[in-house]
């Protein structure tokens, strides 16, 4: 029971971090059709920028500066990079962002080196919020939840209650029609791409000290965020949110399940041993393959519901 409750909280925190990353990616992907491979790299940049601004100006200004810097980089990438390769089709755009991953990754290594940065939780948030069955829940995780919930509300308001939000929404579902109506679609693209990068930067600021700020962090977070986007469905922020929370929970809960498929078969009178056919797979406890479950879920949803959980159009 205690493990269940603690895992629920941890799953929520991890899910919300995933959402912060995935929301930007899903907006870009749905609207521009560009699977931005460099999204994880922007997340990493956000963490490094935050570390640097924390050193000189403190954490709170970092919370503002790092996302803005990432947003500016995003805008620059869109205006001077993506827009130029756009004429050559999606494959060119895909390859372009793929190249960015290496450029950003290498630049970060050259600027900051290979070792993790001592980017720590600010002293003002470094206390246990409450204690649950002897385990402390750090205030910083509460703060992460707060920021991501605030972000969710802000995106929702922006999309549903403002004019630019309406245009973006229209462009999400009917990009051709929106352009035909005379909206400045390139400008909207820039705003969406910069906005997505800004969100990734924000996720970097609060994810950098929740995890560790090092050159490997882009590779570590990149794949799972793609899984979330595909699983949630194109053009749906709600689907993205749902998928993030589900993935967070799946990853967190799978860790505490020590049973294997063989254990489930046992009451039915079927005994599986390690050396039987497929025995190796059937006797592995779920905890050991937990990190692979999201990928498995993505494969299944692509097979049986290609548009994703709440997707509005096929991938």
């Amino acid at each position: 029971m205690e493990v269940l409750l603690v895992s629920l909280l941890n799953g929520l925190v991890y899910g919300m971090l995933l959402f912060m990353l995935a929301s930007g990616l899903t907006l870009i992907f749905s609207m521009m059709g560009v699977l931005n491979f460099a999204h994880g790299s922007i997340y990493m940049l956000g963490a490094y920028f935050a570390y640097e601004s924390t050193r000189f100006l403190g954490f709170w200004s970092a919370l503002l500066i790092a996302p803005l810097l990432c947003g500016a980089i995003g805008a620059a990438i869109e205006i001077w990079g993506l827009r130029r390769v756009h004429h050559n089709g999606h494959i060119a755009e895909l390859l372009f962002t793929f190249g960015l991953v290496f450029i950003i990754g290498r630049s970060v290594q050259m600027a900051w080196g290979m070792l993790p940065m001592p980017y720590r939780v600010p002293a003002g948030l470094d206390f246990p919020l409450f204690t649950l069955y002897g385990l402390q829940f750090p205030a910083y995780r509460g703060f992460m939840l707060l920021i991501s919930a605030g972000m969710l509300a802000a995106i929702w308001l922006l999309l549903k209650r403002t004019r630019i939000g309406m245009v973006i929404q229209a462009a999400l579902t009917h990009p051709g029609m929106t352009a035909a109506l005379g909206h400045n679609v390139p400008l909207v693209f820039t705003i969406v791409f910069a906005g997505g990068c800004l969100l990734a930067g924000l996720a970097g600021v609060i994810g950098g000290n929740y995890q560790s700020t090092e050159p490997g962090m882009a590779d570590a977070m990149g794949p799972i965020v793609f899984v979330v986007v595909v699983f949630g469905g194109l053009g749906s922020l709600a689907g993205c949110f749902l998928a993030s929370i589900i993935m967070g929970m799946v990853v967190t809960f799978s860790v505490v399940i020590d049973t294997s498929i063989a254990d489930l078969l046992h009451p039915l009178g079927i005994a599986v041993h390690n050396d039987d056919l497929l025995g190796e797979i059937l006797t592995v406890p779920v905890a050991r393959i937990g990190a692979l479950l999201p990928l498995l879920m993505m494969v299944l949803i692509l097979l049986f519901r290609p548009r994703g959980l709440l997707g509005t159009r096929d991938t």
Partner: protein
Amino acid sequence: MKGRRLFVALLAASLGIALWGPARAADDTIKIGYIDPFSGPFAATGNNFLKVFSYVLEKINAEGGPLGKKYELVTFDSKLQPAEALIALKSVTDQNLPFVMHCVGSNVGAAMIDAVSKHNARNPDNRLLYLNCGALATELTNEQCDFWHFRFTANVDQRAVARIKTLPQSVKSVYVLNQDYLFGQSVQKATLKYLQQYRPDVKIVADELVPFGKVQDFSPYIAKIKASGAQSLVTSNYDRDLNLLMKAGNDAGLEIRYDAYLAHQPGGPTSTGPAGDNRLTSVMEFHDNVPAEEHNPAAEKFIEGWRARADFNFIPLDYVTMFQMLTAAINKAGSTDAQKVALALEGMKVTDMMGDENIMRAEDHQLLSPLREAVFTRSAKLDAEKTGLGWKTETKLSGADLTLPDTCKMKRPAS
């Protein structure tokens, strides 16, 4: 016409220089192919090792290398993938390098042993030796042992014996957690085996494998560890998998000892930070405070030089010992011929920088060297990675303490 003739002459000249240059350089250097991850998630480790090697080799070259020649490293990126490492190995053999060195990843090590052995069998006139400075899985000098492979560092079983023997008597319950791949499973087996052998009083409350490099948040594991009530977490996790584990533990205020195998690896101290004070121990060859602890001014100077240059701490004493042995073996063999050097290395004894005896065991090519168990503490004189905390030796085990039986049936080349 004149222009073209000039061009041809220049081309010929540059070709001549290109051909003549390396050939001449090869006369007074001994080149060693060095394969390790220099890109990707584990690049930090490879690049740090490379810095250490260049410092060590500078010292050894300054003293006059083997046969009056100088060592030179030629690096190749393994990306921590066996397939990439084998491509790199092909480049090493194409360049006729007499030695190939590799430190990170037992999976890579296993592939390299096999490839080097096959290469040497097929190309008797272009053989090379595999100098293993960090692929730790014990199997590599047991079932998979090979004449052309020498391991210059303590293997998993030796480390596990050191780890278990140095667990405080007050610890009565342990949680065993390792990464789910060759090395982690190897440590897991050895830990369980030697716990039973040396500390039957200790209860193993859980024995867990975590996906290698895939876990983003260890909080769920921390909840599990807390629920198990273990006093000590015995883990061979390293790099990111250790850093995130300790971070999650500290965040949750988990009261537990961390008895690690590889917490001293680059990046470990930074990520652990002040939270590790007096709670984290690790088993290592050496650390910055050893010279002062053992009153060895020459070694203190070596460490001072390193810290001034790299602004970092020093762990791998075995890298120095490895080149001491290699130099002695090449001098004894009188050449860099792989077979002659291998025979010279077998059974070789050298005294390391701290004055301890190191032996290269002939029967399985495993180095017998001392290990130190140290605690991460504020009261250490020299800190690690500018954290303000450093390592302090609690127990030192000699090479003889860590001599274990082996199951190696080595095939030796004829003649």
